[in-house]
């Protein structure tokens, strides 16, 4: 597959790795706007490394990425991103280290019959309602954010905007939609969340 060039970044994509699409571009654009030089940045579900590579190409920041998919990790590593394999925050110390955590989660409502074979399923499958991974992520994320730190989360209207906001508020976050665009049959948005310390 030809490398993707976007906002000074050049990213190679391997087979069995989520190919950057509108969601990735929107999250990368917001990330460049919101991230300042010198910040500590984590990308959860780093995939090919596309979003982190765009951040690194435009800011004096070296994002760290993690994923559960070994093919994605090899791809992101080749794209120059520091990565480790982890099930969500499993492999991270609870030292409140990060200024910004980026996450383009598996957000599609997925029934048993719709599951994909192999690791790529982890890129899409958000459980029956599309919010399983998002709920687990928000139950844990505050241990890893600095005071005043923020989450930039991508979701689709298919994930259920109000229900996702309910999850965030339940876990003590204030949430705002900071970018929104319309695709064929869904709205795509990036939500910024800060913990109410």
């Amino acid at each position, binding site marked *: 597959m030809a490398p993707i060039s976007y906002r000074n970044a050049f990213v190679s994509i391997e087979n069995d790795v989520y190919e950057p699409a509108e969601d990735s571009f929107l999250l990368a654009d917001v990330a460049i706007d919101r991230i300042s030089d010198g910040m500590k940045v984590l990308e959860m579900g780093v995939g090919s490394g596309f979003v982190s590579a765009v951040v690194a190409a435009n800011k004096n920041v070296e994002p*760290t990425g*993690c994923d*559960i998919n*070994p093919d994605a*990790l*090899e791809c992101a*590593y080749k794209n120059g991103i*520091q*990565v*480790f*394999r*982890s*099930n969500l925050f*499993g*492999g*991270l*110390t*609870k*030292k409140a*280290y990060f200024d910004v955590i980026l996450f383009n989660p598996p957000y599609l409502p997925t029934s048993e019959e719709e599951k994909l074979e192999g690791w790529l399923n982890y890129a899409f499958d958000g459980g029956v309602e599309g919010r399983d991974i998002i709920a687990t992520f928000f139950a844990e994320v505050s241990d890893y954010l600095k005071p005043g730190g923020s989450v930039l989360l991508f979701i689709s209207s298919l994930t259920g905007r109000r229900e996702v906001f309910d999850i965030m508020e339940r876990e003590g976050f204030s949430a705002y939609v900071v970018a929104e665009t319309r695709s064929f049959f869904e709205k795509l948005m990036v939500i910024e969340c800060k913990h109410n310390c």
Partner: protein
Amino acid sequence: MKKEMMNILACPLCKGELVLNISSDEGEEVISGTLYCAACDEYYPIEKGIPNMLPPEMRD
């Protein structure tokens, strides 16, 4: 992984500190080795520069 990634990694079982054992490296980049949790007596492999922090029962 860069050696400074040790600042952020923890044992996925107990969230405790890990000890880095290097088999091969290139400057600050660790290419292969292990991360050891003494409390759990568990090793986490580093291969091709990528630490595998999955708990043992989730590894391939």
